[in-house]
């Protein structure tokens, strides 16, 4: 499969920018203490008060920190591996690169719109833009029929389709439970804190849930796009899953109260996604 040079060039620009943005989140801690702030919705929340995420709450700053760690130790290395392997023209390399771009797209879409305005705003926006156009081009240059032809018989088609349906159902139930009651009562949603709206819930319900369901349907129908999409979505879940686990650990370290049931389900979903992602990569012959 011929590598797309523009995708590789865009991905190559993402590497240093992501190192810069995630590195700043981790290593620029500054000085200052957390302080209480009364939000627009009348709730009192603790602001981090120092470092790059000084204007985020203690809770969301700890999630951003967890995300940064995963971006540095998994996201960037996967992206580099994807760049190197797709320059050799391998199919696995192209899928790896597309999946890694999917991770950066979701991550920096959320960082651009959900992180409190900070000095790295334009870097987040640049990363969002580069990974959006890189992802679209990468998807467009995937030869889906070739991918379908390279899937070996051991590919767990039904398990993966079932997994996507479970992820979609869980996200739908969890996030509807969070946003529907406050839509009816007018009270602030749990977890809104100092943010203006529920960005992650909208992204997941509006984009991730339909994509998971479409992928599951295409897989069950044995359509070529199903294999291509499932490889890409699983790679994104592989990285997002580790990020989620890292976020939960980081929140626990910061002393944030977390919902044990939701956290355990998220960890289970992440671990099975990571496993299925690895199984998928193994079942693609070059």
């Amino acid at each position, binding site marked *: 499969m011929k590598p797309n040079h523009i995708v590789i060039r865009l991905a190559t620009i993402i590497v240093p920018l992501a190192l810069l943005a995630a590195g700043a989140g981790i290593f620029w801690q500054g000085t200052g203490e957390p302080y209480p702030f009364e939000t627009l919705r009348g709730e009192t929340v603790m602001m981090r008060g120092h470092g790059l995420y000084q204007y985020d709450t203690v809770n969301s700053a700890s999630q951003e920190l967890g995300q940064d760690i995963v971006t540095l130790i998994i996201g960037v290395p996967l992206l580099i591996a994807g760049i190197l392997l797709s320059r050799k023209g391998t199919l696995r390399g192209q899928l790896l690169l597309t999946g890694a771009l999917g991770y950066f797209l979701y991550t920096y879409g959320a960082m*651009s719109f959900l*992180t409190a*305005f900070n000095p790295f705003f334009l870097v987040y*926006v640049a990363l969002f833009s580069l990974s959006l156009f890189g992802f679209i081009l990468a998807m467009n240059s995937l030869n889906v029929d070739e991918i379908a032809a390279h899937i070996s018989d051991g590919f767990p088609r039904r398990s993966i389709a079932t997994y996507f349906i479970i992820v979609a159902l869980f996200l739908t139930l969890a996030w509807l439970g969070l946003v529907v009651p406050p839509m009816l009562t007018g009270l602030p*949603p749990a977890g809104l804190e*100092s943010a*203006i709206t529920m960005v992650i819930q909208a992204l997941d319900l*509006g984009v991730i849930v339909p994509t998971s369901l479409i992928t599951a349907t295409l897989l069950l129908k044995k359509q070529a796009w199903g294999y291509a999409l499932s490889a890409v979505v699983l790679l994104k879940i592989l990285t997002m899953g580790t990020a989620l686990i890292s976020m939960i650990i980081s929140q626990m370290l910061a002393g944030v109260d977390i919902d044990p049931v939701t956290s355990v389900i998220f960890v289970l979903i992440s671990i099975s996604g990571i496993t299925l992602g690895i199984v998928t990569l193994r079942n693609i012959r070059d």
Partner: protein
Amino acid sequence: MKQRSTLYWLVPLIALLAAITSSVGLFSQGGDGPFIFTTLHGDAVEIYGQGLYRNDSTFVAALFRGTDAINLFICIPLLLVSYLYYRRGSMTGTIFMTAALTYFLYNGATLTFSAAFNSMFLLYAASLSASLFATLIAFTTFDADILSNKVTSGLPHRGMAIFLYVAGLGTLMLWLSELIGPLLTGQAPANLGPYTTMFTHGFDSAVITPAAVITGVYLLKRKPLGYLFAPSILILCSLIGVVVIAQTISQAIAGIIFPIGVYIGMIGSWVVMGAFAVGFTIVFFRNISETAIKP
């Protein structure tokens, strides 16, 4: 034009969702009225305090209400009429429907990610989702090569490309000029108000500017994809020109009056951009024949 059965329910759904959210935004009342909120950065801002946008700043609530009016009276009718022409197999209808879907994608993203959480939140997310997938499907109903065969030699490729560069890069420059100062000094941007971050600045810079510039490059290189994207961006710019006029009127009604320089410089430039976009849209369709030019 290829018919896609998914669009038969997605497009009416988008129109319905937009009709509901825009009507509620424009007509809902109630609430205690404006109040002052002290932001994280210590600035005092006026919050609208009434109707659907009660938790938005008065500044932004007025923008949203202006947009709602244009959605109800121009954008939703445009989407529905172009959809009917699409069903009849008209290419012009399909192009207009795709452009209207692109507009609702932009509108849906703006309300989903930048309006203060309100009772329409899930409808915003649904509208964003439906218009994202519908736009992707609509773009794939075109065969760009067939479309490019219908373009006559009179199309002013260079003029359109220059317009797209100016619109895309001008927007970027305008937004950067509002951000660079605060980014260097560490202060909050002037209109941040109660918001988490500067959504429109980020979204336009990340998505609209590159899309406009790439389309301009494609047009100059006579690439078929250029003819596919150009009308959508031109119609989007035309609609934004109209929306800005409505937003300015809505802000004036809410008591937000700008210095004359802002009307001429900022708002005037959006309207001029919109006027040029209307002109180029007309030129584009005059240079498209429903039958193929080349064999």
